[in-house]
């Protein structure tokens, strides 16, 4: 439905988007995941029309969007600060876009009532934004966008301003709303948990381009770059190179896994996929236990390998004393080859 190719944008000398390509399908919940400075907010502002890209194309159902100003785009946006008009009531905030579109009073009323019902804000029509809680403000912002029946809704860090306790429930409600309305949602977030939990597909942005794109399970299980692996919580990345079908890692002091693609430049290992070996099992790598921290359900161990790298390992039982020599092993399927 929405297609962006080769988007470029720089602010002065600072590049924000560097040849970014993206395709969004109708009706999907899409998450743009990235750290600060990854270009995710700039991308959202380009889609909404607040920034003009320096180069690239942007089309919606084949129609060129770039010459269309923000007020004429069939795309709506929910701002991180919510941007609720402080001098208007909840009802007037929601009515704002309908008035601009020339929707007649009666239809306006019924649509406002329906959308407030949808987000669970009945009875708060006359309140001012200042009189609402954080969660209520978020719903008003959502209602104000949804009442326009956009085909595509952009959400800029929709949960960032909410209390931690409210976030999970709100996220699930957000996805339920997305399913109910059938609109495509593009959510920008820096929180990987949020993206993984809610989205049909995620794109991880790095330095102004898409580093990896795909369903959450796939991106999580098969990251392709060091950045994506680290960003999605893989605690360990070991550098090395392929030789004769085997991945040699000097910093690990051992060969790690075989049958990896020839282009592998590093491998990622999740802390929870590494186990300590017992005496009758040959370890893949060996090292010294440097530190251990109790985390409630388990311990997090920091182990210095022979080659100098350190590994983080999640261990279910009380660890040996610090300084002990330790052997580590993992299943072959846990080794995630990285290509950049």
């Amino acid at each position, binding site marked *: 439905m929405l297609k962006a190719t080769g988007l470029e944008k720089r602010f002065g000398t600072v590049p924000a988007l560097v040849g970014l390509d993206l395709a969004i399908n109708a009706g999907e919940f899409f998450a743009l995941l990235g750290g600060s400075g990854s270009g995710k907010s700039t991308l959202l502002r380009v889609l909404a*029309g607040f920034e003009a890209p320096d180069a690239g194309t942007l089309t919606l159902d084949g129609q060129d969007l770039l010459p269309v100003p923000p007020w004429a785009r069939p795309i709506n946006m929910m701002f991180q600060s919510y941007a609720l008009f402080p001098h208007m009531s909840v009802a007037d905030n929601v009515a704002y876009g309908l008035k601009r579109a020339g929707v007649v009073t009666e239809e306006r009323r019924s649509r406002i009532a329906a959308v407030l019902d949808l987000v669970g804000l009945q009875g708060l029509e006359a309140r001012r934004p200042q009189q609402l809680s954080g969660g209520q403000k978020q719903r008003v912002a959502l209602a104000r966008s949804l009442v326009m029946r956009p085909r595509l809704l952009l959400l800029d860090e929709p949960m960032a301003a909410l209390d931690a306790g409210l976030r999970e429930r709100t996220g699930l409600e957000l996805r339920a709303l997305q399913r109910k309305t059938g609109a495509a949602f593009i959510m920008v977030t820096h929180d990987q948990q949020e993206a993984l939990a809610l989205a049909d597909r995620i794109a991880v942005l790095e330095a102004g381009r898409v580093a990896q794109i795909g369903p959450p399970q796939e991106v999580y299980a098969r990251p392709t770059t060091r950045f994506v692996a680290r960003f999605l919580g893989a605690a360990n990345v070991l550098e090395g190179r392929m030789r004769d079908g085997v991945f040699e890692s000097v910093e690990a002091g051992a060969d790690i896994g075989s049958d990896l693609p020839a282009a592998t430049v590093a491998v990622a290992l999740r802390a929870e996929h590494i186990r300590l070996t017992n005496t009758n099992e040959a370890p893949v790598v060996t090292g010294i236990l440097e530190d251990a921290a109790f985390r409630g359900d388990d311990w997090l161990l920091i182990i210095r390998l022979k080659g100098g790298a350190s590994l983080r390992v999640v261990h279910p039982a009380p660890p040996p004393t610090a300084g002990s020599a330790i052997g580590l092993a993992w299943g072959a399927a846990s080794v995630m080859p990285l290509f950049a």
Partner: protein
Amino acid sequence: MGGGIGDAAFRLMRRGILLAPLWVWLFMLVAAPVLILVVMAFATPADGVPPFTLGLRFAAFAMLVEDFYYAEALLAALRLAATTAGLCLLIAYPMALGMAGARPPWRLPLLALLMLPFWTGFLLRIGAWMGLLRDEGLVNHLLRGLGITDAPLALLYTQGAMLAGMVHAYLPFAVLPLFTALIRLDPALLEAAADLGARPGRVFFSVTLPLTLPAAAAGFLLVFIPAAGEFVIPELLGPPEAQVIGRVLWQEFFQNRDWPLAAALALALLALLILPIRWFQRLGARA
């Protein structure tokens, strides 16, 4: 970040249409007058309407250097401005501390009480001081009634009267930045200092004072800058010999009709004020 809306060229054009009249306005009412002031300072006074002929002569500036009368007027103005600003600060600091220390519901009324004199008219307030300080005025009546003096003291048209009027007119300017800075001061800082063993006096000198010093400087300059060019108060309350630059400029312009000299005096005053103005703007940029 620009508002990246639609076609860039169109955007620039629209912005230009909005900016153009503002540029014309600022050029005509701010830039051009000052430039003409420079041109005038190099002209020659002449009989006629308007009373000058243009040229490139340094006569007006030479007069400023040669005749000590003008240098003294500049010095007197700076002295008056510095004394006024210093006195204002001395009174404003405890006043601002008292206001900021008052319970919150009292702060707004106190602020209103501070600013309200502005709405009563500058000249009327000067008039009130004239009434108080005249030979037959209220203060002299009081002094005689109490038996302190038996002949009226000359109070009006003195340095003291001038200073009283100056401080009265400019005091709120000094209090305002200090009051704002004091109520913005994080109370946790004062509590932390007290918690670390500082007694109230020590808290003030080691925390409050250093943190409000920029505001004190702003208050000083907010008084000093306009006071340096003051004309009305020295004219109405001051002694005839208090020839500050504002008054001298006025006389050269209105009585001697020497426009080039008046322009040169204005430029000299500006030159003296450049540094305080730059300092003040730097303080403002930081706040």
